[in-house]
């Protein structure tokens, strides 16, 4: 573990990503203290440009709401949905992939056809349909992102488990009399954790993008402020008030970029080929 951390720390770009992610997390946690008022509340005259008033540093929107406050509160939603929906996708994808890869044969065929089906369906369109029909809410958004997010997990885990399955230590475990469940959970999965961690970190970023896209289309939870919603609401006035869509977009871009950088740093630090500590 210490070896991993020192390898990660050596990657400067990944460290920058990690610091940015930490900042975004800090803002999300601090949002209720920085801006105790609801971000939906009118605080100034509408269309106040940025940097004109120190109390509303990023200006106000069409209804005089504080853009900076919206950004801080939006960070909460983005991170929450990014993380929870990734966990949902993992909870579905890991068991399916592990079972398919370990047992092979018909079990594998059936599970992989099922997975392929979900991969063929245009995922964003499916997410739109799911959220629209089940009515926009935090739960439906998280569920929809999870539903479209699990197939890559299943495929990755299946491939990795399949590769491990062919290794002789698994045969040795069978000969030792271990049960299939023990072999999968205790022998194989620990060897598959690294790529899953990397994929999961990248999925958080993708989930944030997806959430913002849904909110942009008006499919976000109507009771929480989110970055995608802010851009969507300001879309029609982009000519008059560029800052209303500019700042939330930059927030999404920076957050997603930072998470991706961390993910890549993880991938390199966890890849045995890139380490020279031992071989």
């Amino acid at each position: 573990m210490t070896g991993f951390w020192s390898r990660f720390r050596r990657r400067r770009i990944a460290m920058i990503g990690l610091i940015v992610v930490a900042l975004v997390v800090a803002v999300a946690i601090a949002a209720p203290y920085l801006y105790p008022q609801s971000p939906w509340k009118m605080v100034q005259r509408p269309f106040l440009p940025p940097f004109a008033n120190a109390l509303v540093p990023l200006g106000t929107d069409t209804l005089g709401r504080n853009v900076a406050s919206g950004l801080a509160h939006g960070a909460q939603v983005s991170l929450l949905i990014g993380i929870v929906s990734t966990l949902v996708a993992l909870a579905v994808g890991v068991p399916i992939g592990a079972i398919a890869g370990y047992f092979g044969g018909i079990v594998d065929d059936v599970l992989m056809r099922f997975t392929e089906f979900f991969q063929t369906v245009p995922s964003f369109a499916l997410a739109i349909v799911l959220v629209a029909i089940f009515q926009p809410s935090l739960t439906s958004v998280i569920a929809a992102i999870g539903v479209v997010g699990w197939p890559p997990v299943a495929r990755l885990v299946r491939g990795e488990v399949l590769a491990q399955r062919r290794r002789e230590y698994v045969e040795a475990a069978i000969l030792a009399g271990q049960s299939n469940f023990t072999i999968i959970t205790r022998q194989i999965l620990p060897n598959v954790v690294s790529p899953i961690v990397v994929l999961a970190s990248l999925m958080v970023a993708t989930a944030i993008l997806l959430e913002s896209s849904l909110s942009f289309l008006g499919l976000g939870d109507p009771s929480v402020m989110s970055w995608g919603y802010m851009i969507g609401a300001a879309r029609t006035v982009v000519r008059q008030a560029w800052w209303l869509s500019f700042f939330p977009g930059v927030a999404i871009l920076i957050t997603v970029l930072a998470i991706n950088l961390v993910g890549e740093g993880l991938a390199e630090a966890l890849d045995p080929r890139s380490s020279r500590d031992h071989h």
Partner: protein
Amino acid sequence: MQTLWFLSSRLVKGILVVLAIVVLDFFLIHFAPGDPAAVMAGESGATDEIFLQQLRVKFGLDQPLMTQLGLYLWGVVRLDLGYSYRQQMPVLDLVMDRLPATLILTGAAFVFSLVIGVAAGAWAAANKDRPLDRAITTISLIFYATPLFWMALMSVLVFSVWLDWLPGFGFEEVGNTDNVFERVLDVSRHLVLPAVTLGLFFTAVYVRMTRSSMIETARMDFVKTARAKGLTEGVILRRHVLRNAVLPVVTLAGLQAGQMVGGAVMTETVFAWPGIGRLMYEALLQRDYNLLLGVFLVSAAMVVVFNILTDWVYRLVDPRIEVAR
């Protein structure tokens, strides 16, 4: 003969996928909160009791679930995707009307992203760890993290509103000439911004894939063999590395084309491009669920067709498939 057999078996598979989506649609309607008839009619149609009654009869909504499923499937098999109360038109006609615009947009974006992505990725790989590689990698990372709809908005703002270089709205100028050439030119001008913004995210994906695939391939034994023959690095790169590295990228690109339909919803919404993505957004605004599901089904079918084509092209390009199967 083998190709025929292959195509027909893939076709059967594709049809099964589409049928599965129909079944999914059916259950979505039934497990959605509220009266299935109201769901199908959409928000505006739900107030029209006569229309609702027609739907109940047509889909046998008072009969057992399996009968309903059968009726629903039968409708789809006859290419009846229902009726949009709001638009006063059959769903299929609406979708087919809008499909060409989407095909043009996604096709242009696909070609753009694949060509630029593979070229830039290969260029970066050939200059691995040099400033050029870093620049390409960084730019692609940024595009990879940019929300599509935001990039679309910003490009309208910059290139259309501020610089006034390109139109940022619609498919063509209204009341244009009948001159075919001028019309093509006009549509092309309208196409640039939406196709590029839609393509950039995918370009970033292909840059990264091509780059890592090239680097991976360059480590392979047959590259060493090529060097042992005395070939120049340029020939080795083009003839041996690139060919082997691009094959999996193109395949994956083909299989990922489905994601582009999702992206089209964003792009078409921002640029008012009259395709099925925009239609989907309109359906969302009007809560016209039947139309929404119809668009979803057609876009999925489009993806299935595209995947079959990809498989087929792959078979033509990779000699190993022919016998292995």
